[in-house]
């Protein structure tokens, strides 16, 4: 699975599962609250029956002629009687402050109106401890249901996600295949052109058309680099890197030489501060793509007779040009694929994306500062 596909799938799953979870949580909460009330109501029905028993005993007590009246008591049930003004008369427990309370955290309450007022009682408040066993059972059932629903919807979401990204995957496959075919078809003519230019240069033929030959050479090398970039992007996900110790000084000299025709065409002045024997553990092709894309931009967007400054130390590589620069608003997005801050020159906007990928892969740090119409400075730091 491609990185972008995985990212899309993860995003889809996160949104899908979060919304499903929220929906189920709300539904479960509503169900739990209603079922809990139902369970409490069932327990309250029992309490009502017990209240009736106490009420009938109050009637008997009221008629009793005994000197001492034993207040009725039922196991686990507490009760208290109140007069018409809701003042406490007598009871088996300390009554709550509010008579209207239906339940608290531990107990259920039931208030009964009594008439006539046996023993002066106009209200009877009965209370019993809440039986938490069925409520805990209900909680367990809901949690189990949520867990099972979570598993089921995760599996469903995964397959749905795969189903949804299938068209995107096919489109990407087709595009990759097209790029692969195109680049493959481009490779042979470009190589032929470059080989022939080298032969002409080697054998000193066609001296009178030197300028035209140089332009053909530049155009062919540009094409060749685009081919290399496209191949790199296309194979990036399954590209096997061979990390070796690369002499960066030699590599930069080699790449400057590669771009010499473009540099000459722009009549750029090159200043370098290159320390000797600087090596870096990197795949050689990655290093070439990194240097080439930065150099190519610095040359392409530089002005005629501009300046190009290169510095390479043990820790970093710095490249400064005197080109058109990048607007501040574009500085943050310029690393994205197909993003182009300026369309004055040719290209697909994939160069800095490749740079960004390489920098992130090796854990380097990339800094870019720019001022419009003054120039751009890029720094790649590989050792801290």
């Amino acid at each position, binding site marked *: 699975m491609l990185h972008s596909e995985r990212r899309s799938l993860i995003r889809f799953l996160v949104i899908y599962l979060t919304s499903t979870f929220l929906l189920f949580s709300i539904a479960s909460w509503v169900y739990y609250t209603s079922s809990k009330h139902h369970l409490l109501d069932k327990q309250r029905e029992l309490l009502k029956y017990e209240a009736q028993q106490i009420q009938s005993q109050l009637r008997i007590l*009221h008629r009793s*002629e*005994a*000197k*001492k*009246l*034993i*207040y009725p*008591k039922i196991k686990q049930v507490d009760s208290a009687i109140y*007069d*018409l*003004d809701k*003042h406490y*008369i*007598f009871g*088996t427990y300390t009554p709550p402050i509010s008579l209207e309370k239906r339940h608290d955290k531990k107990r259920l309450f039931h208030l009964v109106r009594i008439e*006539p*007022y*046996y*023993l*002066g*009682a*106009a209200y009877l408040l009965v209370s019993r401890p809440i039986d938490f066993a069925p409520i805990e059972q209900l909680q367990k059932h809901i949690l189990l249901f949520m867990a099972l629903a979570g598993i089921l919807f995760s599996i469903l979401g995964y397959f749905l996600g795969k189903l949804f990204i299938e068209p995107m995957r096919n489109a990407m496959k087709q595009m990759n295949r097209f790029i692969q075919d195109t680049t493959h078809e481009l490779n042979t003519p470009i190589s032929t052109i470059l080989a022939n230019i080298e032969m002409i240069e080697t054998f000193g033929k066609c001296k009178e058309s030197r300028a035209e030959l140089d332009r053909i050479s530049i155009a062919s090398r540009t094409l060749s680099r685009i081919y290399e970039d496209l191949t790199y992007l296309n194979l990036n996900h399954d590209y096997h890197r061979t990390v070796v110790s690369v002499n960066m000084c030699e590599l930069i000299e080699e790449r400057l030489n590669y771009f010499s025709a473009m540099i000459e065409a722009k009549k750029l002045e090159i200043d370098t501060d290159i320390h000797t024997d600087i090596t870096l553990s990197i795949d050689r092709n990655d290093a070439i793509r990194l240097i080439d894309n930065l150099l190519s931009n610095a040359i392409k967007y530089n002005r005629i007779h501009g300046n190009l400054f290169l510095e390479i130390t043990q820790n970093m590589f710095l490249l400064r040009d005197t080109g058109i620069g990048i607007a501040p608003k574009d500085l943050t997005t310029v690393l994205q694929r197909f993003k182009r801050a300026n369309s004055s020159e040719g290209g697909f906007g994939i160069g800095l994306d490749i740079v960004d990928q390489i920098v992130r892969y090796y854990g380097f740090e990339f800094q870019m500062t720019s001022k419009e119409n003054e120039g751009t400075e890029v720094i790649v730091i590989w050792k801290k």
Partner: protein
Amino acid sequence: MEKIILIGFYLLNSSLSAQEVHTVENTLEKDCLSCHREQQIPSSLLYKRYLMTYSTKARMEEAMFDYLKDPKKENSIMPSQFFLKFPMKKRSLLDNATLHKDIQNYLKEFDIRKKLLIFNSQ
């Protein structure tokens, strides 16, 4: 010497308080209960009738006062048939304050709270 005076003062005070309680009881006894007993009117049953009808002390006191000041079938706690057999009580000649005091003492005397208790099996 001071101790003797203090003890003397305490004894005098205690005797006065006891006498006051005794006087209050005597007033209730004299003004109400003695007559009730004589006419075989069960005071505790009357109290229960009032209690069952009016519930609170304040309401009971008000109802008793109204009846004693102006006894008639409408404000009596007894059913109307009762008066077919027994004559209507004469209105009380006691002054309002005394009558209130007597009623309060009556309610205190027969207060249902005093009779109620919780039976603990343990």
